[in-house]
């Protein structure tokens, strides 16, 4: 007895092709074009502030195996562990062969704000473009200008060796339909200028929610529980909630949190070192005092 008639088989095959076709078209990268990039005179000094606010160096630092590498430069190569594999974030210095020296502005903005690589491929959202998408594109261009001032380091990218890479990247394309919100931060006119600056830094470059907001089974952030903490993405321990920090007695006031973020354990704040927060805190210690105070004002307002 035949399981499928020829006709049923043809119908199923057609459906499969249609399904694949649909998947292929909805998962296609949708890059910005050069005309989407605003005219802007780049400001490398502002770029340096945002480079630190965005924590670029934490992931793009050289690996421990690169003996003579200058650890202060984002030449890439340090391992970044995730559930789907270990990534080696690439070289951000202006080296033309192994860095981003030859990238155009639109390629840079597409990578940072749309998660699309220079060859048009989807980038895995271990790179937090989902938050960087909320940044002002001018600020992203300023980071690019700051990176261009750094010495070029020749450090070839180490490939992650992902399972079923082509399909996985297309899977990311489909995931972006729900997981990538490209609206830029909008100031709330009922709040102070510093609260809005803090909100921008936290939600855009700071990408705090990438770890401090729990995710569902599809790895989408649960916005109803924004900043309420969750399991650590590295698999060990928990990420604390940022809600109601003063009410829960974690910090005395916004100034206390600002001091914690700026100083960490150098002033005895012992909960800001583990789970990757130590590197975040090191980056925050390099920001202007007013920006750290703004971040603290915004975060302590979360209820």
């Amino acid at each position, binding site marked *: 007895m035949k399981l499928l008639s020829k006709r049923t088989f043809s119908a199923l095959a057609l459906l499969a092709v249609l399904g694949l076709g649909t998947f292929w078209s909805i998962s296609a990268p949708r890059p910005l074009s050069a005309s989407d990039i605003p005219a802007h005179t780049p400001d490398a000094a502002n770029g340096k502030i945002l480079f630190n606010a965005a924590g670029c160096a934490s992931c793009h630092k050289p690996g421990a195996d690169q003996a003579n590498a200058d650890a202060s430069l984002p030449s890439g190569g340090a391992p970044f562990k995730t559930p789907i594999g270990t990534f080696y974030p690439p070289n951000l210095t202006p080296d033309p062969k192994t860095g981003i020296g030859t990238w155009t502005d639109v390629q840079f903005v597409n990578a940072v704000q749309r998660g699309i690589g220079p060859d048009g491929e989807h980038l895995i959202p271990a790179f937090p473009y989902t938050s960087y998408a909320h940044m002002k594109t001018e600020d992203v261009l300023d980071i690019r200008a700051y990176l261009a001032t750094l010495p070029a380091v020749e450090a070839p990218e180490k490939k992650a060796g992902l399972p079923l890479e082509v399909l996985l990247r297309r899977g990311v394309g489909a995931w972006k339909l729900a997981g990538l919100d490209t609206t830029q931060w909008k100031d709330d006119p009922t709040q102070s200028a510093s609260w809005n600056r803090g909100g921008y830094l936290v939600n855009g470059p700071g990408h705090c929610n990438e770890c401090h907001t729990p995710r569902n089974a599809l790895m989408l952030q649960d916005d109803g529980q924004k900043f309420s903490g969750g399991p650590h993405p590295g698999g060990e321990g928990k990420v604390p909630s940022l809600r109601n920090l003063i009410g829960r007695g974690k910090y005395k006031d916004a100034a206390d949190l600002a001091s914690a973020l700026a100083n960490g354990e150098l002033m*005895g704040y012992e909960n800001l*070192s583990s*789970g990757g927060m130590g590197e975040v805190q090191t980056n925050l210690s390099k920001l202007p005092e007013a920006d750290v105070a703004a971040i603290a004002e915004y975060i302590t307002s979360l209820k």
Partner: protein
Amino acid sequence: MTKRLIHVFAAGCLLVLGASAALAGPADDAIKGRQACMKGNGAMMKVLVPMVKGEKPYDAAAVKAAIDETEKGCADWAKWWGPDTQKGETLKTEAKAEIWSDAKGFEAAGMAYVNAMGALKASTDEASFKAAFGPVGGACKGCHEKFRQAD
């Protein structure tokens, strides 16, 4: 009747005692020691940090007392990190596996703290105290970054 109830109750107590004795073990003891030592370090920080920040006046005697107190609590440090103490029998620990897989790195991080504390102890006035405090906090951070897991 009442006597019988007392017997049952006593037997129950013994059972509970016996069960908890069987559950707790040497790893729990080590973890308890570690956590008490760290708690002591935290208590020392509560005395020192307000002086570093200038919220309280510098008090050499109080600094010395706080350091002595925490050192007492951590005296058995070397006994607490055996390979069988990675997980407690009943207690949770924030110690990361890297403590044992990178034993040299862990020891170096610990020595950075010991040396920084030595310099802090040797400080004699407000200026030298403040200068010596930074490296102590830096050593705490350096070790916690690598060897302590998130909450």
